[in-house]
């Protein structure tokens, strides 16, 4: 596995379909307590334009590049995957089966374990690149979806996508977002994200990437200790674009303080009451 943390960092693209998409009307974002509610709706240039115009720019950086794959149908997921399988400079595919802000696709696949299995199996057949489904928190039991993805041939799991939310403008008595509902991210969701990533990591043998409200080394360590092998940071980039230097410094200080040489030594070391 070429997972980001193991070779010193990486980036994940925004979701890509075959064709360009306009995304949602505005307003698209609303600030909520310790969080950000968004309905961007996967605005993007389409996978072919991305491969032609954006990938070469990303290849200039010495980093792992994971591309987030979307589709309205199982066939579209497979088709986007095939385009990326042939593209230079792609190290892995994150499969977006959990976007709450599109009318079809997205959650339709991530909210039904049979569909999760079907779409991941189709993507698996279409590529030799690492396949990393991004799971939704908007389900009752994430372990069912984690196992379905693993059974279908996933190499790792991203946990979690945003939580479905609704913010209301009480003066206008309308949703604050033009789309209506949105996906909640930021520190507000972190305890939920850590819990779900922990549940998923216990349910499968493949690595889990922890996502949700990370903006410090302490936040990242919560996920790692809970069993994640890597983490992603999203919303905090919007708040502090210089956060990686700070977090890596904090992480090094933590390891030193605990007499550890490698961050992997903390992975899965959570001393959970009643679990041996």
């Amino acid at each position: 596995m070429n997972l980001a943390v193991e070779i010193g960092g990486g980036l994940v693209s925004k979701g890509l379909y075959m064709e360009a998409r306009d995304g949602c009307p505005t307003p698209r974002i609303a600030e909520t307590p310790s969080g950000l509610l968004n309905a961007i709706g996967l605005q993007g240039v389409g996978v072919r334009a991305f491969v032609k115009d954006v990938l070469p720019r990303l290849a200039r950086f010495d980093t792992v590049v994971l591309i987030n794959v979307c589709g309205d149908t199982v066939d579209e997921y497979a088709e986007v995957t095939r385009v990326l399988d042939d593209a230079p400079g792609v190290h892995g595919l994150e499969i977006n089966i959990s976007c709450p802000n599109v009318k079809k696709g997205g959650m339709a696949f991530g909210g039904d374990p049979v569909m999760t299995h079907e779409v991941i199996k189709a993507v698996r057949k279409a590529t030799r690149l690492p396949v990393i489904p991004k799971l939704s928190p908007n389900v009752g039991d994430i372990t069912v979806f984690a196992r379905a993805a693993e059974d279908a041939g996933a190499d790792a799991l991203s946990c979690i996508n945003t939580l479905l939310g609704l913010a209301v403008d009480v003066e206008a008595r309308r949703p604050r977002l033009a789309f209506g509902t949105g996906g909640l991210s930021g520190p507000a969701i972190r305890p939920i994200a850590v819990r779900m990533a922990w549940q998923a990591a216990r349910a499968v043998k493949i690595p889990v990437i922890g996502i949700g409200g990370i903006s410090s080394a302490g936040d990242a360590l919560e996920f790692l200790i809970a069993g994640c092998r890597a983490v992603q940071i999203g919303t905090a980039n919007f708040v502090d674009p210089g956060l990686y230097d700070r977090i890596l410094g904090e992480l090094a200080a933590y390891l030193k303080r605990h007499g550890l040489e490698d961050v992997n030594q903390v992975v899965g070391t959570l001393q959970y009451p009643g679990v041996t």
Partner: protein
Amino acid sequence: MAGMPANRHVLLVSREALGGPYHLLTFRHREAAREARAGQFVMIKAGASPEPPLRRPFSILTVDPEHETFTLFVKAVGQGSRALCSMREGERAQCLGPLGRTFTPPGEGTEAVMVAGGYGIAPFRLFSEELRQAGRKGRVFYGGRTASDLQLSDRFEPLGVSLVPATEDGSLGQRGRVTVPLEAYLDAGPGPVRLYACGPDAMLHAVARLGESRGLTTEVSLDPWMGCGIGTCLGCVVSVQRREEPKPKYRCACTEGPVFDAAAVVWAGEEGSAARRAAGSPR
């Protein structure tokens, strides 16, 4: 990433309460003081507190390269702006910038007619300085609900820019909307004019229509909800259709704006108008 604006912890060197919710905040920031141009903004938040999560965009009012400072005109209306306005001198804010596209200066012999609504006056102080340095003429039409909304109106005459106030309650200047004296001025047949507007969307739309009806190039500075300021979150997009484009496209106000050609903006309730202009009807 190349061209990535620097994130700075900037010192508040002076804070001036102007009355009511209005404040002038001056921060030390060498690059912004030297490089910022009219129309640009910073994304800024007070202190290191995680709440509220996001920075807020503010136009740069003035710069002082000698003292390495820039000044913001801030109306405390929400959590982010209130936190900024309650900072004490010597405290720090997190600042990203200067960001965004500048106003296009008028050509020689063309007058810059600026139209401001409320705190939309902010970018026009620096613009007026740039006009003076370039030897261009400028004039400001400044509207608000009432006299106290028309802050800083005495800071333009010293730059040789005359300012025409208008208030909806008649407490300062002409009674009514700012577009009334603006239209009268344009009717009086000044020389070549280029329009620039910053303020509430309804005012911008009205100025855009006025500019279009008279064949004047109009630039508007838009102020949508903004998340990151660097083109990443795609939260602040504006529907824009340029002449050569077959359909409108969402563009980030932070990186492709905040200043846009008014004729290309697809205004709410007027979808299709930019398409008609793009198709070659008179503008």
